[in-house]
Every structure is written in structure tokens, then in C-alpha cells.
């Protein structure tokens, strides 16, 4: 089985796909920074940022429903912020005769966190869906990430699917031997026994990876690898990409300034 379905990259033709990966990476990061810098409760600005994110989704030709659903993945984490409704200081809203009171600031902060998280997530999805990983690696080099780190990233990506396949083979082998993973029927002995067998699988995966890593090194050494990772020089930014970059940065600085002008 091949698990390429894991890769969220969607091979489409769109202006966003065609855009230089360096520009996309920088704009996406600045967008998320601007979202983070928007004050809590500045709903007009947050709505504008949401509109920008949805426009990016549309421009990239992605399915809007898919992105909106997927962006909700992080929302369960917001449970961590839920107690703010009760504990934050400031004016209170009494809930009838229940004796429970909610903090206005707390509610505002909670909703802002929800919204910011959701909008940032959308842009991250656009970036991942419209940029192939090799392009992203090039962009990482271009924004001066250490060579060694980018090399590790690249190798990790190359073997990610191989090892996920391997992990899934291990899981399938276990499932076929113990019927199925069924906690209710207590398949396969005690919990600690099950944990140890899962541990054995992890150890097995680790050992195989270790040996694979050695083999890869030997193969690379045989082909002239000397510790230096060489990659093609990335071409200069085209005038078109530069225009998009500048326009995007101007738009984002306006969005950054708006809540501060009208506060």
C-alpha cells in the first residue's frame, strides 16, 4: 500500500500554484504574524483577514468546504481556553438565577482565539496544498535556513512515506494475528503486554530505519557524497513574483495598521 494520500499537496493549475514558493512562504508567514498581532475583539479586522484567507483558497482553486472543514481540526485545542470565560477579570454577565457569571473580556478573548486559530490554519492549508514539498525546501534554503537542517528535512520527506508504509505494515500484521484491535474484548492479553508488543513494533521500526539510514549513507557515499549538500541555485525572483510579494506585503501592512488606526 502506498500512502501518498497523506500528502496534502494538490496538483492544480492556479495563480497560487504558479507563484514562486519563496513568495508564498513569506506571505503566509507574514499573514499569520498579522493575524497574531491583531488585537482581541477587533472583529472588523479579523473578518477582513478571514476574507483574505478565503480569497487565497479560491485563487488556489481549492475546495472551500474542504479547507473550512480541515481548518477546524485545531479547534478542540480551544478547550484549553474555555475556562477564561469564567476566570478572566472585567465586567460580568450574570446567567439568570444560576449564580454563574461570565466575563465579557473572557468571552471576547476566547472567541478571538478561536477565530485567529481558524484563520491562521486556513492560510497554512493553502500553503501546504498549493506548494510541493521540494519547492518548499528550496524556499527554506532561500530564507537562509541552515543547509544541514534543510538536508535533514529533505531526506525525512523522501523516506516519510516509505516508513509510514512500514509502520502500517506492522500494524496490519498485528491486526491479522490478533483478530482485530478490540479493546472491549481484551484482545491480546493484558494492557502491559499489548503496550510491550506495540513497543516491540516501535523498536523494530527504529532498527529498520537505522539500518536503512546506514544503507542510504553508503549509497550516497558511493555516489560522491562528502557531507556537503549541494543543490541547484535558485533563480532570482521574477518581476512578476516581486510585484505579488510587494502587493501582498502592502495589503498585509494595511490590515496590520487598520485596527490601530480605528481603535
Amino acid at each position, binding site marked *: 500500500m502506498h500512502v501518498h494520500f497523506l500528502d496534502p499537496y494538490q496538483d492544480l493549475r492556479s495563480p497560487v500554484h504558479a507563484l514562486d514558493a519563496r513568495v508564498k512562504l513569506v506571505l503566509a508567514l507574514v499573514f499569520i504574524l498579522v493575524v497574531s498581532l491583531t488585537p482581541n475583539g477587533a472583529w472588523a479586522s479579523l473578518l477582513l483577514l478571514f476574507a483574505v484567507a478565503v480569497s487565497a483558497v479560491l485563487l488556489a482553486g481549492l475546495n472551500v468546504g474542504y479547507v473550512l472543514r480541515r481548518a477546524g481540526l485545531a479547534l478542540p485545542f480551544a478547550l*484549553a481556553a474555555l475556562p477564561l470565560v469564567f476566570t478572566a477579570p472585567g465586567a460580568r454577565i450574570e446567567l439568570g438565577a444560576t449564580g454563574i457569571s461570565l466575563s465579557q*473580556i473572557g468571552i471576547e478573548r476566547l472567541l478571538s*482565539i478561536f477565530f*485567529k486559530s481558524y484563520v491562521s490554519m486556513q492560510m497554512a492549508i493553502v500553503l501546504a496544498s498549493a506548494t510541493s514539498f521540494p519547492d518548499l525546501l528550496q524556499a527554506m534554503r532561500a530564507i537562509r535556513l541552515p543547509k544541514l537542517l534543510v538536508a535533514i528535512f529533505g531526506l525525512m520527506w523522501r523516506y516519510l512515506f516509505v516508513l509510514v508504509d512500514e509502520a502500517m505494515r506492522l500494524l496490519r500484521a498485528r491486526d491479522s494475528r490478533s483478530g482485530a484491535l478490540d*479493546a472491549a474484548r481484551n484482545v491480546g492479553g493484558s494492557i502491559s503486554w499489548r503496550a510491550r508488543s*506495540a513497543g516491540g513494533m516501535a523498536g523494530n521500526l*527504529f532498527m529498520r*530505519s537505522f539500518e536503512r539510514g*546506514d544503507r542510504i549513507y553508503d549509497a550516497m557515499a558511493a555516489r560522491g557524497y562528502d557531507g556537503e549538500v549541494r543543490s541547484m541555485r535558485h533563480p532570482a525572483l521574477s518581476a512578476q513574483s516581486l510585484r505579488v510579494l510587494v502587493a501582498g506585503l502592502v495589503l498585509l501592512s494595511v490590515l496590520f495598521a487598520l485596527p490601530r488606526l480605528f481603535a
Partner: protein
Amino acid sequence: MLSSPAQMHVPDGFLTTTVSIVLWVLAVLAIVVALRRVGNDLGERQVPLMGVLAACIFAGQMLNFPVAGGTSGHLIGAALAAILLGPWAGILVLACVTGIQALIFQDGGLLAMGSNIVNMGVVSVFTAWGVYRIVQMAARGARWGMIVGGFAAAWISVVVASMAAALQLAASGASPANVAIPTMAGVHMLIGIGEGLITVGALSFLAATRRDLVSHDKTAAVAGRGVWIAGLVLAIGLAVASPLASTHPDGLERVAADIGFLDRAQSSPYKIFSDYMIPGIHNQALSTIVAGVVGVLLVFVVAYGVARMRRGANTAS
């Protein structure tokens, strides 16, 4: 399937910009030091190996085992990486795993990536490695050292990393500290058990098949004094911060408000969590902190002393 085993990946939107950037700086510093150490000590052979091992940890997070009532235990892998690779390579591998999870699978935010690298890469790797080494020294190479050390390293690293995440959320005003820290730590005390059991299983498997991978002579030499100091600082930092934060849930927020990135607080007429208003809590928090610091120092002095004595004994014999 790709949902993170533990809700420890902080998404974007939860941390304030200041907190995110401070943690990014810490993450970059740790990665730069780790790159230098790995480059100097381990050499070119490590690059493909670390790429494959990062992929291995990522894939290994799919391995699970059923516990009860439809829940399952998962591998997170920070402790396993720290024990098998040593702290520096462990940090690089975990940083790459965290990076790919955020960039490609949106598991954790991009601006929050610094925080996630610090929690899951730096904090958990250092803690796991320190705990494992201490137990190893106490065990003097006996087999129980690997089992107890592996379990303790995995469990403690998961709990400490979750506390670090909770502390950052509290410092950002995204969650009250007296709720976030006990809840996160409590949940991860359970998750940590699964992690510990799997880690021990993996270590026993490797000890039986590839003993050379589990033996520690290489990585022990690599680490040296810096790691001891880093571990000490981390442990003391958390010992100070956690009781302070959870007895003064507004303390961190007050700092944040003073710096100016939170809405200014007014006194509230009603409080649900009013226990921290008890007079005299200052002393209680202080005594907890002092006790924590003294305890941590004692453990490290003893561990360091044992390590020194062991080294002396080895060279003498």
C-alpha cells in the same frame, strides 16, 4: 490517523506574538547549538540517518495499542530519540518532525512552531535524556536501569513538556494557569504511561536485537557539561514557575498586562476560583518554590557526584 496522539501541538492563535517570538528565538538557538554539536561530533554519516530517523519517529507515532473504552496509547517518541541518539541529534530529529507536522499537516501552528519545537524537541529531549542518564548511573549497567530509566524518562518528559506548553498558554493569557497547568499535567500523566510502556518495549526489543544501539558510550561523551547545566536550568525553571503560576493564576497575566499585550484588568466582583485569595498564600508559594529548587539541586548534586565517582572508579580500575 494523523491526529496528534497528545493535544500538545499548540496551534496558531493561542500564543501572543511576544511569547511566540521569544520561543522561536529559543528554538533557533537550540537548533543552532545542536547543529554545531552534531556536525562536530557525529559527522556526515549522521545526515541521512537523522532524516530517516525523523521519518521513523513520524511514522512511529501511528503505532498504538488499545487501552480501554476505545482509547489507545500512542508513541510520541521524544524519549526514545533522546535515549538512542543523545540529546543533540534528538533535538534535531524532533525539530524536523515538529516542523513537517506544522508545515504539511497543520498539526501545530507556524508561528507557534517555535513553542512546539521547544516543548517537544528541547524540553522533552533534555528531560528524557537527563532522567535516563541519572537512572543509568544509579543502575550501574544493570538491566533494570534500562527498563526503569526508559519508563521514567518517557513519562517525565511527556509531563514536563505538557507543563511547559501549559505555562506558555498561561503566559499568553489563553488559559488561566491554575486550570491549564494541573489539567495538562494531569492528562499527560496518563498519556505518559502509554508512552513509557512503549518506550520500554522498544528499548527491550533493541537490546535483544541490536545491543550496540542501546549502549551509551558514544552519546555520553557527546553530551558533557552543557547538557547537565541545561537540564538543571530547565528543571529549576519549571519548579519555580509551576507552583508560582498555579497559586497565582493571575500572576502571569498580570505580567503580560503590564507589558501591555493584554486587556487591562479590572477587579472582578465575583470569582469562581477564589482559593488563591487566601491570605498568606505568598509564603506558601514561596516555600513550595524553595522546596522545589532545593530538591532539584539535591538530585543534580547527587547525580553529578555519582557520575564523578563512577568515572573515577572506571579510570582507576
